[in-house]
């Protein structure tokens, strides 16, 4: 069975929780005790309806304020597919959590309140989906019941949205518009009589049938070494296996490979797993490689096919989202974690900070605060071995870590 990971962005006001609740409820994914718990809590709060946000807002602070603060992961399945929802907040102050939740998604649902149309938040949600190169975007125009299921309202919102995205230099996704009401259950799981003019799919139909783009680069074989396996036993004397994950492309026994940064070459002798040896690796598989020659290989090194090596640079351009409450310090030292490699780095320059709504670029400010999205120049103490994010997501992204707090302060994609 196929798996689709998708993210939803929005706040309670947009009907996001109702949407997720509706998906779970109408696919019979909720158990009796979960429904009872929601009923009891809704009643205690004096609501005369089921507050389905209580299913997803797992933190006391969220339930208290009626907002989503952090990402929740929700699991359900139908006869067609398994789904993982990354339910993310919509408010600007939680942009970083939205980036976190969307980063592993194959599809992003952007919710629009039919009464409000395209707003600043819509812009930001789409900007992030585009930044992260999420291949599928579903614009779900919700609360259609509150605008008399008007086709005109839907069409206008569609045009408004398409007009906004004209401003982007490059677009990377297919966009689908769905007219729905999650409260009434129109076009979420079931098609109803309310919008006869609507010819598109219901949300669930779309989620079940959209072609899942695994987004794995098949041409560039990359193997970041995670761990050196040394059994120290008699039967495995002198055994040195390089454990890691084939993040893109594939390797076969006999392939000539180069280890970076040393630049030393060897051939793949064996591909080992607990379940037996293989002649060739599967995409994304976690394996252990054995090489023909004894060369120096440690964690953080990258094994690649000699005929196709990644860039090796100490300076590069990246788009980053700043995720820490402490502002960035220009010229300050940070740690960059790329693949399994950590190197010291500085943000040499902030080229511009982008306004996700107007798409204007601010070239004046040279430091970044929480939730800023910017293009920057980065300089590292030793080379990174990367591909551009555009070409190879798995080898083109990184995080920035603060040396003092050890927190993850930014996420970036290499241009």
């Amino acid at each position, binding site marked *: *069975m*196929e*798996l689709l990971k998708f993210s939803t962005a929005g706040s309670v006001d947009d009907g996001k929780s109702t949407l997720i609740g509706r998906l779970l409820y109408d696919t019979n994914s909720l*158990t*009796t*005790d979960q429904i009872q*718990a929601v009923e009891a*809590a809704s009643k205690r709060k004096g609501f005369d309806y089921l507050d389905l946000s209580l*299913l*997803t*807002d*797992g*933190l*006391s*602070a969220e339930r208290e304020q009626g907002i989503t*603060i*952090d990402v*929740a*992961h*929700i*699991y359900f399945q139908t006869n067609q597919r398994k789904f993982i929802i990354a339910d993310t907040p919509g408010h600007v102050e939680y942009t*970083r*959590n939205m*980036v*976190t939740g969307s*980063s*592993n998604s194959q599809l992003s649902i952007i919710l629009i309140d039919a009464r409000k149309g395209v707003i600043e938040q819509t812009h930001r949600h789409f900007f992030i989906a585009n930044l992260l190169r999420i291949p599928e975007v579903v614009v779900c125009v919700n609360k259609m019941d509150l605008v008399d299921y008007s086709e005109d309202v839907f069409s206008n919102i569609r045009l408004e949205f398409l007009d906004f995205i004209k401003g982007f230099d490059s677009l990377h996704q297919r966009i689908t518009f769905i007219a729905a009401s999650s409260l009434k259950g129109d076009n979420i799981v079931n098609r109803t009589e309310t919008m006869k003019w609507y010819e598109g799919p219901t949300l669930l139909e779309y989620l079940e049938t959209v072609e899942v783009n695994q987004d794995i680069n098949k041409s560039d074989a990359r193997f970041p070494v*995670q*761990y050196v*396996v*040394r*059994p120290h*036993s008699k039967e495995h004397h002198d055994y040195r296996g390089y*454990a890691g*994950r084939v993040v893109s492309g594939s390797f076969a026994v006999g392939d000539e490979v180069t280890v970076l940064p040393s630049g030393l070459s060897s051939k793949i002798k064996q591909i*080992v*797993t*607990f*379940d037996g040896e293989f002649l060739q690796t*599967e995409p*994304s*598989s*976690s394996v*252990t490689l054995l090489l023909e020659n004894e060369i120096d290989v440690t*964690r953080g090194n990258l094994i690649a096919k000699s005929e196709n090596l990644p860039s090796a640079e100490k300076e590069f351009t990246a788009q980053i989202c700043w*995720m820490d409450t402490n502002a960035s310090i220009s010229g300050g030292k940070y*740690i960059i*974690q790329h693949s*399994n490699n950590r190197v010291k780095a500085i943000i040499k320059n902030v080229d511009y900070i982008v306004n996700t709504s107007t798409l204007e670029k601010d070239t004046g400010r040279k430091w970044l605060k929480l939730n800023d999205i910017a293009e920057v120049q980065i300089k590292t103490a030793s080379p990174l071995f990367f591909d551009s994010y555009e070409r190879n*997501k*798995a080898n083109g*992204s*990184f*995080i920035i*870590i603060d040396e003092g*707090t*050890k*927190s*993850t302060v930014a*996420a970036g994609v290499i241009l």
Partner: protein
Amino acid sequence: MTITISNHLKALEEESIYILREVAAQFERPALLFSGGKDSITLVHLARKAFYPAKFPFPLVHIDTGHNFQETLDFRDWLVEQTGAQLIVRYVQDSINQKKVVEENGKYASRNSLQTITLLDAIEEFKFDACIGGARRDEEKARAKERIFSVRDDFGQWDPKRQRPEIWNHLNGMINFGENVRVFPISNWTELDVWNYIKTENLALPTIYFTHKRQVFERDGLIFPHSDFITMDGEEVFTQDVRFRTVGDMTCTAAVLSTADNVDDIISEIKASTISERGARFDDKRSEAAMEKRKLAGYF
């Protein structure tokens, strides 16, 4: 007959192995918290795979509440012998004797929340910097919010507002002195995924997961195992065919009526079930935020 593993389970397995290897590489003194339940048994299997042909480079740590099912303890010892793993056991009873915790009273008394103190002491004693646990996000709504690498402060506390962003597959295990990390490699697995994996990989389990005759009693609409550890409130004890869906402390783990004696039957039973896995756990029913509160205090 060989059962081929489904793409979906394979993907989950690859991800978990990746996480376990990150733990071994990023931390100096990791440990695997082993409860004897199906989730930690799955973790042990994944750990064997991740470091094959070497042994996995961390000990199993069992926090023994003293109220465990004997079948679980027997299974634990058997598994340790099979895998050659190192086992560390620390006892809630010792924490009680040292007056670090006070035993709860009354008919709902449980040692489940007391184990947090024993666990934190064990972390301190062995200077563990990472504790691997078998928690899953589909279990409970507070768990659904937790990261794969969950940083805890000096006191083992989880701060949900200060969680590190976890983006793509970059796991940041850097910590300051005194902090430690809880790691959840099977975060993205569901209860059914675990059972399907147990079936595909043919994993052995403690016998209490399968149907057996047991002395039980009914309380608040749930069926509990009769034991010396539970204060009775006049309930009638009777014998039933039951099995357990989760394995925790005997005082808070309810049984389900079942005749399932093999993994296939259990899978069908779970698919048809109208209550959730933790619906049979009394520790979660104490309040709406029961799990979140325990996690704030350092529960795993």
